[in-house]
């Protein structure tokens, strides 16, 4: 009801949603990359996001601008992703997918608890000191920090897509995603490709996390919803559909904001998870008519 009666509230919710949706899309792009290339579902995705947030938060606490933390989070998570691949993930890549889900679940529990021990369990945020723009008689507010994080997220995504198109490593990654065996025959070192793919995925999450801490809040236990959101975005868009990932990321953000205006913010996370179930069941039902199922 409230959605129809208050047009400005509506517009406000959609704007906020789209701006956070860009961050979701960035995380989802990382997941699609790891899923498409290595055939693993990385449950630790959300914990990478929160860890990236904490790196930026530490930079902010030391007295620097949080924007400086964004490249630092990116670099730190890149190294961490590389190490995690070399230590753990390389052993589960060619196994059953459920094994990789469980293994990354274990990684996510470890990272989450270590963050809880180091940074404590308070809700944290980093202030950028950017102002707010008012439109339409103060009916619509746009926080400049949200706008700039939107711009950084989009720029980051475009940067990675460009990197995939142009660089040698990017081409090797795309070749491996198409057919790992053929790529190996043609001289691509797939082991190296996997390691860099996982590292790029983690780095994207780290960048997203530093945007999250600037625009919203972080908490050690807030990771899993990001994992579920990115999973949801990827299955809606389909693997390898990059514009689709962006579109469904923005759409999910807008939908979440609208839903939390309509039902109250305490239902927000629960609704995200229910939406996931709904999408999965809906797609499966449609496929089941043709005697197929989601693969």
């Amino acid at each position, binding site marked *: 009801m409230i959605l129809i009666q208050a047009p400005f509230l509506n517009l406000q919710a959609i704007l906020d949603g789209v701006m956070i949706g860009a961050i979701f899309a960035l995380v989802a792009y990382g997941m699609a990359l790891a899923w498409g290339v290595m055939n693993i579902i990385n449950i630790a995705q959300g914990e990478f996001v929160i860890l990236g947030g904490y790196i930026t938060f530490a930079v902010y606490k030391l007295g620097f601008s949080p924007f400086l933390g964004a490249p630092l989070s990116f670099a730190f998570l890149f190294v961490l992703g590389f190490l995690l691949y070399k230590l753990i993930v390389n052993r*589960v890549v060619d196994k059953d997918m459920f094994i990789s889900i469980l293994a990354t679940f274990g990684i996510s*529990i470890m990272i989450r608890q270590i963050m809880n*021990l180091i940074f404590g369990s308070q809700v944290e945020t980093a202030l950028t000191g950017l102002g707010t723009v008012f439109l339409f008689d103060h009916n619509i507010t746009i926080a400049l920090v949200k706008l700039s994080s939107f711009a950084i997220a989009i720029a980051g995504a475009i940067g990675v897509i460009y990197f995939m198109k142009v660089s040698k490593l990017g081409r090797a990654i795309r070749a491996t995603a198409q057919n790992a065996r053929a790529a190996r025959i043609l001289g691509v070192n797939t082991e190296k490709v996997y390691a860099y793919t996982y590292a790029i995925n983690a780095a994207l999450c780290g960048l997203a996390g530093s945007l999250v801490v600037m625009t919203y809040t972080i908490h050690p236990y807030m990771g899993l919803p990001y994992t579920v959101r990115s*999973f949801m975005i990827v299955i809606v868009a389909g693997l390898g559909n990059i514009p689709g990932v962006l579109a469904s990321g923005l759409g999910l953000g807008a939908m979440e904001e609208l839903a939390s205006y309509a039902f109250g913010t305490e239902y927000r*996370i629960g609704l995200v*998870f229910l939406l996931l179930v709904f999408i*999965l069941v809906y797609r499966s039902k449609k496929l089941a008519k043709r005697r197929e199922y989601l693969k």
Partner: protein
Amino acid sequence: MMSDRKELIGFLIIFVFGILAPIVAPSHRIQFSELFIFMVFALTWNIQGGKMGYNTFGNIIFFGLGMYLCASTQISYAFNLSEWTAAGGINTFVHTIPEYFISLPLGLLVAAIVPTLVALVLGSFMLILRGHYFAIGTLGLGIAAGEFATTMDIWGGGMGMTVPIWPKVDGQDLELFLGVGVDFFFYLTFVLFLITFFTLRWLYSTRFGLILTAIRDNEDKAEAMGIPTMRYKVTGWLFSAFFMGLAGALFGNINGYIEPNEVAFNGATFGVYMVLMTILGGKGTLWGPIIGAILFQLFKEFFWTYFLGWQLVALGFLIVIIVVFFPEGLMGWLRGKKPEWFGEVVDKKARLAQVTINTND
């Protein structure tokens, strides 16, 4: 399946343990009841994850639901539920003995029936999903359940609620009396474990068990053979939900306190424990989950005693180790070493030939 003699030894060990444990080591009774609850976890998870090949993270829903429903039934039998949660429970309201012993069976009944019905509804659409989509879908469902329980004010929301305490007779020593309560719930969990175990043992020996295995091996073929696979998958889930609901009801009473995300719908601990225990012991076998639960409880107590504060980090590490290095579990490893123990006919020559082929590979 194991040979009859070894199975008999297994039964004997469990019976002796179940009857003597509270007498021999009274200070560990709560850990032992938890062990039996964990065995029920692993046994019921094994119906989906092991026998049927449907890796679920969602069985925790029935556990949490059973816990909340049993406690609310116990309370509402004698008092007003919302007043109870508002008061924070403990000393203001105490059940009399007849009230307690009538409300507990009622609570158990509700905690068994309602989760089973919920499984019927959820299963009718969730079990269309396959493979990792089912795993992630049920993971989402479990967390959504926890989130919605947080918004339920009648259950104390995120603060949680207390469970009726063991009724006290006037003039009795309180400590002794609470001790009797601990013994009582220990034997209840033991009985629950026995019922679960023998039901599943019988279930796996019927045509139903064969069909579950057929679904795991190739669902499309099973369907092509004329088996209504959906009906069997849902029925399998009903069994899990029934026993998980009861396990939750008992666990709530043992724990004395219910909270949505840390106790009842705790997908990150209990929801993963059941998967780990089954994998550790060996999925798809009858005894694997039991052995896995015993090993896991030993690990857990060790971590919780010596790495307090870091116990969950250690848990994450344990998950990675088990999954990466022992994906077949203890029973799988044993089966590879001693196939004749599992009633497999072993042709020494063929086995030798197989080994040489493997080494040449």
